[in-house]
């Protein structure tokens, strides 16, 4: 199934990547090429096969329920594009 511009716009919106009409136009053939390629898996019989989520067969460990990190606010904020008084800053979200 080939994607159209409308679907690309929907996916781009879900992925929070703004596509200008020009970029969207340029992106479409590559996307369809990849989707056409992966489509071939539909020919493989996988009936009754348990999906493989991870190669590590064991269940994930739980760590001890103790505080072992923290008190590093400045390090956490060190790479933020904008901070004020120990907070990340984003555009106003409440009207």
């Amino acid at each position, binding site marked *: 199934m080939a994607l159209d511009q409308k679907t690309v716009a929907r996916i781009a919106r879900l992925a929070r990547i*703004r596509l200008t009409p020009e970029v969207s136009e340029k992106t479409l053939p590559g996307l369809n090429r*990849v989707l056409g390629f992966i489509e071939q*898996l539909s020919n493989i019989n996988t009936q009754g096969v348990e*999906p493989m989520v991870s*190669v590590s067969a064991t269940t994930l460990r739980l760590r001890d329920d103790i505080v072992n990190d923290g008190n590093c606010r400045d390090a956490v904020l060190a*790479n933020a594009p904008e901070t004020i008084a120990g907070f990340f800053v984003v555009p106003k979200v409440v009207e």
Partner: protein
Amino acid sequence: MTDLCKLTIAEALEGMDKKKFSASELTEAHIKACEGARGLNAFITESFDVARGQAKASDARRAEGKALPLDGIPMAIKDMFCTKGVRTTAGSKILGNFVPQYESTVTAKLFADGAVMLGKANQDEFAMGSSNITSAFGPAISPWKRADGKPLVPGGSSGGSAAAVAANITMGATGTDTGGSIRQPAAFCGIVGVKPTYGRCSRWGIVAYASSLDQAGAFARSVKDAGLLLGAMAGFDEKDSTSANLPVPDFAAAARRGVKGLRIGIPKEYRVSGMDADIVAMWEKGAGWLKDQGATIVDVSLPHTEAAVPAYYIVAPAECSSNLARYDGVRYGLRDAALGDDLDDLYEKSRAAGFGEEVRRRILVGTYVLSAGYYDAYYLKAQQVRALIARDFAKAFESCDALLTPTAPTPAFALDESPDDPVTMYLNDVFTIPASLAGLPGMSVPAGLSAGGLPLGLQILGKPFDEETVFAVAGAVESAAAFGGRK
């Protein structure tokens, strides 16, 4: 004095122990070599001052008789590994100014063993590529030359790491391998590259691409050196929930074991159409070398091989679309917003400005295959195919101890021959991706030259957590090939 940059790691350690030269002299020689090879664009960030400090500390330890296992060895660190206080970009504009406040487990372990960091190696953006051309910092170039003189790609994604080791400007390097990103560049650059079993090295502090596949590994100019590096990098880490709690074997010692009595499988499905005749011949020669050293060659079948690349290009983009959601222009990384923009504008514009074309494509593919109505048809299906591929390997290993295959279907190509078609580029990893999906250890060893004089690699694949057999087979291929490196 001998050229310090041409020594192996094992030779350099011995030379320093015998006081023939100091760690500082070794590091200065490599810094000079790095400066002379800037045309390769092997580094995104040089860290010569860090290296000088580490070398000085190394000399002090050795003077006190307290030398560490890798004390004074100058390395390149792929820019996927977070290094405290040293910019870490993952080859992306979106992390162009990112300076980690913490150290990845793998680099911390290397530094705890005395390794010296010359710089952060160039790579494809977020490790998505097979040529290093998707780097936001320009492509790295292979030190190898073809007769027509065109600049060649070093392979990818760990292209800068491989180019640096092959050019003798670092003694070893770290890499990450999600679908072949260590093994393919090692083959293209005529060096050794090892990806251990998934879970052998901690992923903590490595920029995430596809978490169920990402695994750290090492580049070096000999199998033994690769073993020394991997031994330092591997080991259990509480901070990675998929880290394996197993003792770390002596990989370097395993390289000398020999192959007498081992059964080496040759998977018939790896004889793909369009493969260079040189590579087919090299593969047969490699099997002959192992037979001559006492191994038995057996034919095996991995029936779902052809499905591996398409399955990978569902699983990896799906995981990438989720992992890369963290780049939001708020907490770290590039921000692009104008006055009056709302939060969604900020997200969408920052991500559009920060991600390159290939990364954007994989995020979009991943978002699509995970989206409502398509999840079962694509993602679940790919996970089922992944299970079949893993089952194929398990079955093959009932009749053999390791597999021998080519690493890549062609030798290195020129920068200006890089395919525009994404699928053609993806198929470069046709021999490396299946083992990644199954989580198996793999290594590429240089085995000879193509008719055009470019290096060709053979890949050895092993059972889960049996890297020792992989090293044994690799050691046998290395000694028979007598490759000798770049002239």
